[in-house]
């Protein structure tokens, strides 16, 4: 009886491994096949390692309004600038809140916790309207700032609790040496927070890279679209869809984060768990 139970559990665990890997393997293999080959032999390995789909998708060959190369670079620019703003602002605010008491600091902290509970979907219409009025639709910097605002509350909480937990001796020494407060932050506070910064990046990077709803509403011109947005439009366009190029696009959208996972598995797993169970 017990043995049968164990066999079932093992079977389930290994079937799940296959379920995890098979769709991704299919995606990767299909991205190297021509459209005819995809229809005729979906199960085989591609007959040669042909990057044609990638080149085609990157330059948008034969596609209307879709140039995944541009979209890929947009995604990189928006993700990286959001992470830079996020790191800088959350460290600054977390440092101020974790290290110093000031009139309003307690209220601010409670307000920030309240903001964590605000679902950003509910802000879609007013933000779209505001961006429209300010003529900031299709503006990559503006959408970075919006993503930064949405990711900030939780990131500040993480930074604050980090600065609360480490000793202040180094900063005191610097202050005695006549270092200004901003210098203390820049030369000591920020470098000390490397671990917490990486946690902030880890818990936010997938969301920012993948964001679809606000991108759909705020980025309407083809040349500013992000990769997930372009892929969603690409797949919904029934008439000009090239299967191979679409799969090349899916792989392009997946690889950066997957490569990151392969290299930093331990850190990512720890960061995610720490973030969620804070």
């Amino acid at each position, binding site marked *: 009886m017990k043995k049968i*139970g*164990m066999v079932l*559990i093992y079977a389930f*665990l290994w079937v*799940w*491994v296959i379920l*995890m890997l098979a*769709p*991704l393997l299919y*995606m990767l293999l299909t991205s190297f096949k021509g459209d005819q080959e995809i*229809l005729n032999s*979906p*199960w085989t390995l591609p007959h040669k390692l042909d990057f044609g789909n990638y080149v085609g998708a990157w330059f948008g060959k034969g596609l209307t309004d879709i140039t995944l190369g541009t979209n890929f670079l947009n995604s990189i620019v928006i993700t990286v600038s959001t992470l830079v703003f996020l790191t800088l602002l959350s460290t*600054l*605010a977390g440092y*101020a*809140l974790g290290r*110093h008491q*000031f009139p309003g*600091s307690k209220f601010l902290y*409670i307000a*920030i*916790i309240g903001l*964590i509970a*605000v*679902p950003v*979907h*509910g*802000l*879609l*219409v*007013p933000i*779209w*309207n*505001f961006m429209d009025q300010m003529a900031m639709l299709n503006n990559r910097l503006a959408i970075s*700032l919006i993503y930064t*605002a*949405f990711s900030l*509350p939780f990131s500040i909480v993480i930074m604050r609790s980090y600065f609360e937990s480490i000793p202040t001796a180094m900063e005191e020494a610097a202050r005695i040496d006549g270092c200004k407060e901003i210098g203390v*932050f820049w030369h000591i506070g920020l470098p000390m927070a490397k671990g917490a910064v990486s946690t902030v990046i880890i818990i936010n990077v*997938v969301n920012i890279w*993948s964001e*679809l*709803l606000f991108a*759909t*509403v705020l980025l309407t011109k083809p040349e500013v679209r992000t990769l997930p947005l372009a*892929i969603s439009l690409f797949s919904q366009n029934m008439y000009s869809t090239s299967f191979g190029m679409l799969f090349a696009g*899916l792989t392009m*959208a*997946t690889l950066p*984060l*997957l490569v990151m*996972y392969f290299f930093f*598995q331990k850190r990512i*797993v720890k960061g*995610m*768990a720490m973030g*969620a*169970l*804070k």
Partner: protein
Amino acid sequence: MESGMKQMNRPVTIAYWLKSLWRYKVSYLFVLPSVVLFAVFMVVPLVRSFSYSLYDWDGITSPQFTGWGNFEQLLKDEYFWNALKNNIIFTVLTTVFTCLFGFLFAVAIDRRLKGWAVFKFTYFIPVMISMTVVGVLFGKILEPSFGILNSLFGKLGLESLQLAWLGDPDLALYTIIGVTVWQYSGFTMLLFLAAIEEISPEIHDAATLDGVSGFKRMTQIMLPIVKRVVFMVIMLQIIFSFKVFDIVWVMTLGGPGSASEVLGTFLYKTAFRSEQFGYASSISVVMTLIIFTISLIYLYFSNLGRHEKE
């Protein structure tokens, strides 16, 4: 603090008040950029979302005040109730299954079943992929006539399983739920694992001595110890699932018909397809209130809430 008390006797003028705040200028400077972003992109939009919901507004002509009109209409709107119902089905089923599978996986990995490192590594992979990619990929895999799942069933002689996974109104929502469970069971696994690994080896040794093993150990010893984390993960999954948009949008656009419509897609369509911005805002308000309430319960029981209560 003491000097502050003494200064209380002085006349409190705005200039004096500003001067006393000036001492904290660096702290204010540090939080200023964040506060500005919050104000512009969260607080003001939140307030405006509430005020828009009291107007009829097509985005072009000037808004007409209707009071609670939009909410009255919402209560009578069968599409709203349908979206809410689908949202609840989606939330309950994804939460139940991701937590069930995640807990099982976490116990298997913690007990070092053969292959545990492979499980731990592979189960988490889909969490790192964007929902859009997962949705599009499965959309193609599940395509009824040339998708590889149905062609696989054909090869295995299981023609009865060749279903219209996303085209059948009775099935589409459950297919999307299945794909979401596929993607996020690794996430709950990770959270449970972090909690279970904290259980001290002494407790396991005692359990082994007492002959408690397998299923009993999982439900009667490990589960109670990590009870708080289980609760937190369930809440987290509920909040996350209630906000679903991406995967539904790329897999079915809420269809066929409105069979897989959820609040997120319903909101989007009401605002940006039918240009009823006031009505869409009333949907936003309902969503915001529901999620805000659940999130506050979560925050109350999390370490964040605990910290503030002390």
